[in-house]
């Protein structure tokens, strides 16, 4: 685009604009009156909210669907209202030791995290949390929530009209406990607003996630326990295999001299043109001949090596300064010592990105598992979903709940490794 490039580079003649840099809204509203700037601000947030609504709509609708009554209730003309949801536990302390400990820990962790962040702490810097007031806020918040949410459940279970009052009491009760820890923040409206928002979020989450029976029914009827276990083990096996084989091959391509290197590298990259969709039938035949149908070996073997990982890690290895290799050579380190003690630690960001992407791909696999698993006892979680859809058409809430449960590990992975995932996904798009 030569003509555009010329006009971009043309000297700016308007001096008054240069004098007023706008740190918050660079570009978009430079040189406009403050009234129009506010309007622009409202417009920008408005657009963002509209887009966020579009993105979240299917999830929100699915949650509504998961929490709405089973199909027969709709048919009977019952209203689509959360009160009609089947409720599980009568109190916070019922439902088995594990779930009691897990839900208490989850709520306490959430509240502790908010208190920590408001005090300016981070996951690696926990000391700001260790003040009596903040710890009290966490403990009191958890206890108050446990007591009052039990009221919500009991009222919901008996379809009592007091449900809404219990809910309001829980929201304001938890908000009050959070104020103990947040009270010293100024201006005054800030801690009030923050504790109220946290409280609404925590109470809603606790009510829906721990109180309704749809999650355990989705888990049980979908038989997700064994399926998730299998998915976990297959994901771990594939990820470890891919990372190890990719590191080894990348090392050979980056640091070793051997004949036909270019040709072998081209043949490695050539596998990218042969996706599983193309080789599916012949690969199933191979697995059948090996007797690996319905086994972990069959699920893992075709994915034990990947050209994408080899390429990515080779790029990382090429960034290791040659001086380091020379220096370690002089110090008497062999290739293996150099690889594991220097090359791998130095390219940790790239390897971390690839590891997470690889795990994500392995967990989400669909085509291959459904082709080599024909016994429902060996199905992975993603494949289970198809069976659930087939059998639970009327109980939409159970099916949707099962799907959401299967997505939770990926949500956790995404939250924990957001940076690595984004770097891995965009590795091919942006250089540098």
């Amino acid at each position, binding site marked *: *685009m030569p003509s555009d490039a010329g006009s*971009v*580079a043309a000297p*700016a003649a308007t001096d008054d*604009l*240069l004098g007023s840099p706008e*740190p*918050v*809204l660079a*570009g978009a509203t*430079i040189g406009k009156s403050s009234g129009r700037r506010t309007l622009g601000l409202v417009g*920008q*947030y408005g*657009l*963002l909210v509209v*887009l966020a609504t579009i*993105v979240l709509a299917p*999830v929100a*609708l699915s949650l*509504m*669907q998961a929490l709405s009554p089973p*199909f027969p209730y709709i048919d009977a003309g019952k209203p689509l209202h959360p009160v009609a949801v089947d409720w599980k536990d009568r109190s916070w302390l019922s439902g088995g030791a594990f779930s009691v400990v897990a839900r208490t820990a989850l709520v306490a962790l959430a509240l502790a995290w908010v208190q920590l962040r408001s005090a300016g702490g981070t996951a690696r810097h926990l000391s700001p949390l260790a003040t009596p007031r903040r710890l009290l806020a966490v403990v009191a918040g958890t206890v108050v929530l446990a007591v009052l949410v039990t009221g919500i459940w009991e009222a919901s279970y008996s379809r009592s009209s007091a449900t809404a009052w219990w809910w309001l009491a829980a929201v304001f009760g938890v908000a009050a406990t959070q104020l103990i820890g947040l009270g010293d923040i100024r201006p005054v409206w800030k801690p009030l607003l923050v504790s109220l928002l946290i409280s609404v979020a925590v109470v809603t989450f606790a009510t829906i996630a721990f109180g309704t029976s749809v999650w355990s029914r989705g888990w049980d009827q979908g038989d997700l326990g064994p399926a998730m276990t299998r998915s976990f083990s297959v994901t771990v096996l594939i990820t470890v295999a891919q990372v190890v*084989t990719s590191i*080894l*091959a990348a090392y050979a391509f980056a640091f*070793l001299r051997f004949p036909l290197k270019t040709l*072998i590298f081209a*043949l490695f990259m050539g*596998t990218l*043109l*042969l*996706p599983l969709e193309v080789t599916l039938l*012949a*690969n*199933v*035949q*191979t697995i059948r001949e090996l007797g690996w149908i319905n086994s972990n070996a069959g699920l893992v*073997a075709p994915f034990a*090596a990947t050209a994408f990982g080899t390429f990515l890690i080779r790029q990382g290895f090429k960034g290791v300064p040659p001086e380091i290799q020379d220096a370690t050579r002089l110090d008497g380190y062999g*290739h293996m010592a150099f690889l594991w003690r220097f090359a791998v630690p130095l390219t940790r960001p790239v390897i971390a990105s690839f590891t997470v992407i690889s795990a994500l791909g392995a*967990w*989400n696999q*669909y*085509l291959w598992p459904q082709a080599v698993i024909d016994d429902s006892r060996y199905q992975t979680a993603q494949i289970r979903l*198809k069976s659930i*859809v087939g059998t639970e*058409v*009327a109980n*939409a809430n159970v*099916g*949707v709940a099962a799907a959401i449960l*299967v*997505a939770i590990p*990926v*949500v956790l992975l995404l939250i924990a490794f*957001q940076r690595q995932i984004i770097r891995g*996904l*965009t590795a091919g*798009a942006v250089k*540098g």
Partner: protein
Amino acid sequence: MRRRYSAREVALAFVLLLPSIVVFVAFFYRPFLNLLHWGTFESRRNGAYFEDVGLTQYREQLTGDDFREGLWHSVQFVLYTVPAGLVLGVLLAVAAHRRLKGIKAFQAIFSSTLASSVAVTSVIFFYLFNPVVGLVATNWLNDPTWAMFAVSLSSIWQNMGLAFVIVLAGLQAVPDEVMEAATLDGYGPVRRLLRITLPLISPVLLFLLVVLVIFGLQAFAQVDIITKGGPVSATETLVFKINRLNRPDNIGIGAVYSVGLFFVTLVVTAVQFTILERRVHYAQ
């Protein structure tokens, strides 16, 4: 000055490459050659024995109605999902590429569909569109003309996160000075987007285009869960048909379809690169 290869280094390289080579030969190259070969064998008496018919089966099957139908459905799926994916990716990324308070929260929301696998997305949309229990109760899934559109909607939604993340990475690589200079030249937001931003991130858009087209041509789980190919084979994509032919008695036809899919993907990708590469602006 070419140093001679050190025997130890070559041996080490061989050992390091061996695991990958075994996998690539066993599960990539050998199966592909097998498929090429199997395609020349036609099933007789429901797979009781196979007859070598040379290229006849390739010719008949690749020009046959069933393959063409599958190819058309795959192309249809690509036409529905790819332009929407590109537009939504740019829209989301441009909206979220700002220095506003709380923008990180919006970026997290926009990339959140990354957390949903194809199977999870498909289940969600299967129930949403269900004519009886769905909250967006439509008759799309029972209507041959609308079924593919409904299936595509699930993929459009699922691809949003990926498209957003990729385009945003491209936008973040554009230097701020370029945009400031364009603003000072009196370029409005729309003209800035069309004449400066999009040309500058065109390599990223090409990458996204290729990724989305390949995803589209390989679509399977969406169809398998949401419509099971129906109604009346209206959503049977190429990969769906290949998976259905995953039976010993049909292995010859399945092999031909697989090789067909390989060449379709190869040609489409090559065309995208050769035609669009010239129009793409690479910064020096």
